[in-house]
């Protein structure tokens, strides 16, 4: 039997399974950021005047801001002038009409990732809006959705075809002044997804996108906007893998969700970007602003995330619970291994009466990983009868990692009930012993215990994702336990 130390050696040397580069001609604009670059991006995408104005406004505001330093993560300063702000596959000009026309190289990439589009189209019933370095290349099931009046397309397409909707909701949840990275995104966002669910419609399938950072040294600035009209329902999946790179790549996305009266939005993420190698070299910087607004009464927004990748994760999907009786949920599993750092959590802002929020966060640290939960629950003065329950559990594997909790509770209403609980523990020797006695290997035992630890979150994921998430967790933690 291999000793635990040997296990670590062999397993830790496993290569990142999704690390490869697709050779596709890229169309880029010069490095660096200035007003001309912003204008150029806008011009390339043939955007209306108001959007260019909005981008420029954001850019000028961004110049006055400083990179925030408060997060519990360490990284070398980012040179914003050294990155490319736009990259699109060259074939953009003559977009494929069907999947057959899509660049075969590209299709192969997706196959390696385990999402062959054709298969998905036929079998799984998931509509995939695949984002390949900023420009959407294939959209499936569009017709079926269109019949119901659901708009699901790339962001650039939405700007062209539904400018009134984009104009109405863009920046309504995350204003362009929000924070350093969101403002940067507002100035240079390349593409993303747009979904609009009309009144009373229940979206019959899970909407899904795959983001992929491919072009070397391209910061990706996705912008996602989902609007659910009165009584609508939508479940949206976002999944990510990125190829192996040495340079640190910046990813500053913005996601905005709006739920009107009685609407429900469920947003699930599995993030598995390149986390850097064993020494902590390379990896993605994932600085994301995600926020949902429960604008109408009885509306509900639910965030579920499984964060296993990225060198640095910095993200706080939040809910503004504005409508009376609205509900916000946040379920998260964050894994840090090797030299990964994660500072993630949520923000629940209770504005309306009888608003409720639930936070369940599971952090797993292994190797030299540093995992922080940072959450804010704010009960404003008029949020009578607001209720919050938060639970943050941390699991530590190895003595070089760290787990941190920074919950902020701010309450201005006496009828509020706010509870926060946190615990930190390790996998007990006795638990492992018990499993080994029954013939499980140490690795399997750990996998089982970790999956049990995360069960509350995985339960919230749509089926397709739940399976992938469990596998990902296994891959991320391979070799982390002695």
């Amino acid at each position, binding site marked *: 039997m291999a000793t635990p130390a040997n296990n670590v050696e062999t397993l830790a040397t496993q290569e990142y399974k999704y690390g490869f580069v697709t050779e596709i001609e890229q169309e880029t604009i010069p490095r660096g950021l200035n007003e001309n670059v912003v204008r150029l991006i806008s011009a390339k995408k043939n955007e209306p005047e108001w959007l260019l104005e909005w981008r420029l406004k954001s850019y000028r505001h961004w110049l006055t801001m400083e990179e925030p330093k*408060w997060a519990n993560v360490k990284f070398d300063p980012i040179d914003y002038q050294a990155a490319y702000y736009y990259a699109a596959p060259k074939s953009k000009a003559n977009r494929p009409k069907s999947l057959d026309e899509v660049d075969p190289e590209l299709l192969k990439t997706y196959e390696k990732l385990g999402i062959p589009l054709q298969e998905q189209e036929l079998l799984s019933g998931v509509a995939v809006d695949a984002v390949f370095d900023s420009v959407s290349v294939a959209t499936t099931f569009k017709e079926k959705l269109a019949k119901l009046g659901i708009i699901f397309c790339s962001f650039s397409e939405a700007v062209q075809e539904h400018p009134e909707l984009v104009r109405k909701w863009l920046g309504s949840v995350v204003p362009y002044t929000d924070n350093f990275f969101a403002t940067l995104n507002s100035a240079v966002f390349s593409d993303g997804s747009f979904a609009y669910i009309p009144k009373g419609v229940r979206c019959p399938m899970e909407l899904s996108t795959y983001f992929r950072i491919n072009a070397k040294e391209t910061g990706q600035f996705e912008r996602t906007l989902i609007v659910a009209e009165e009584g609508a329902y939508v479940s949206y999946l976002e999944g990510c893998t990125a190829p192996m790179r040495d340079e640190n790549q910046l990813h500053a996305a913005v996601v905005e969700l709006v739920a009107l009266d009685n609407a429900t939005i469920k947003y699930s993420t599995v993030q598995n970007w390149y986390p850097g190698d064993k020494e902590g070299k390379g990896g993605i910087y994932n600085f994301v602003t995600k926020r949902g607004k429960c604008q109408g009464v009885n509306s509900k927004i639910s965030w579920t995330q499984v964060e296993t990748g990225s060198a640095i994760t910095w993200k706080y999907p939040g809910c503004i619970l504005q409508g009376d009786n609205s509900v916000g949920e946040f379920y998260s599993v964050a894994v840090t291994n090797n030299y990964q750092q994660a500072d993630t959590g949520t923000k629940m802002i209770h504005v309306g009466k009888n608003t409720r929020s639930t936070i369940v966060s599971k952090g797993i640290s292994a190797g030299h990983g540093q995992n922080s939960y940072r959450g804010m629950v704010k*009960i404003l*003065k008029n949020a009578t009868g607001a209720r919050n329950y938060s639970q943050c559990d*941390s699991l*530590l*594997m*190895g*003595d*070089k*990692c*760290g*787990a*941190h*909790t*920074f*919950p*902020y*509770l*701010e*309450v*201005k*209403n*006496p*009828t*509020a*009930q*706010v*509870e*926060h*609980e*946190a*615990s*930190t*523990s*390790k996998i007990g020797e006795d638990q492992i012993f018990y499993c080994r006695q029954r013939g499980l290997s140490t690795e399997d035992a750990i996998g089982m215990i970790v999956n049990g630890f995360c069960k509350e979150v995985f339960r919230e994921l749509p089926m397709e994702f739940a399976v992938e998430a469990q596998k990902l967790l296994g891959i991320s933690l391979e070799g982390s336990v002695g």
Partner: protein
Amino acid sequence: MAIALKESEDFYLKDFREFEDRQAATAPAWLSKLRSEGMQAFAELGFPTTKLEDWKYCNVSPVAGVRFVPAPYELTDKIRKQVKELPFAGLDCTRMVFVNGHYAEELSSVRDLPEGARITNMARALTQEGAVTAHLGRYAKHRRHPFVALNTAFVEDGAFIELPKGVAIEKPIGIIYVSAGGTEPWVAHPRNLVIAAQGSQATVVETYLGIDGGVYFNNAVTEIVAEENAHIDYVKFQDESESAFHVATMLAYAARNAAAVTNSIQLGARLGREEVTTVLDGEGAEAYLYGLYVTNGRQLLDNHTAIDHAQPHCSSREFYKGILDGKSTAVFNGKILVRKDAQKTDSKQSDKNLLLSEDATINTKPQLEIFADDVKCTHGATIGQIDPESIFYLRARGIGLEEARKLLIEAFASEIVDHVKFEPLRKQLKSALLAKMRS
């Protein structure tokens, strides 16, 4: 930094020069050096702003904006009379009384000390060689904390307690700071040092009482050292007057198998900030932190605690409670740090709050920072109101609404006060607390 702050720092510097000149003849070299280090650090740090994470909810600009004069010392008959009527004055135990930060020997009573024990005022201790030289300023980090820096610059008087090996003092030792009078806003910088040698044991009660109005500022620093197997029970009771400012920084250091128990009860002051830091720096050391804050009116009371698990096999328990009424604001920030080698740490923390009014605000942040894997750490925070079912239960038994509310609030508060072991003291604390809550 705003200009207003700069101006205020200027007069501190001016006052410091005068203070330095006055002390030049008597102060030993190490003390002068420590003081100027403090002043230097304060000049560099300045008053904290709410941009700093540790001061996010505690805006000290009201303190920074006032021109304080050094605390006047005048022992009038009125003060003498009032001190006699104070709670804790009647307790039959050793006590040191300070008026506006200056030791009032005639009101104090230090007698029947066990052999080798030393209880005296800081001003005297500073002129003598001994433990004070080795310990003063070693635990409170004046280089990092502006208020500690300011206190260190003006360190002059306070309480000094030194317990020799194996000595236990059964009755509590009282340190009473009375604040009274003064025509202009004044500032005092009380500095306390408690050194408990191996296996010694004592209970200390540090009390701040404001006996008439007026604007004043007590900027206190207390350092507690518990050597191996020592046990220190430290109660801090703050009941300053309504317009006062109170900033207190307490640092407890526990060596192997030592126990440091702090119990901090905050009632008074317009702006009160209480920092308690306990460092567990030896295997088997224990920390217990209890706290209660009761606010009303427009008060702002801030509680910052930190427990530093620097060595393995230590345990800590922290329980804080808050009762908020009126338009007041309270802050709780509890940090538990478990260092890399501090395996087998066992730590629990909780902060529970009762919001009684529409306009009160509570900001609470229990915080864990853990760098070791074999640990058991939990923390929790709750914010709520009086349980209507409990009220109903009491009312169904013929107790009026007001009385039922009072009963439940008292019960909520007594969970903290009950940790004070010495019974007469506990009773006194409770009655003082009740008097405050009734008003």
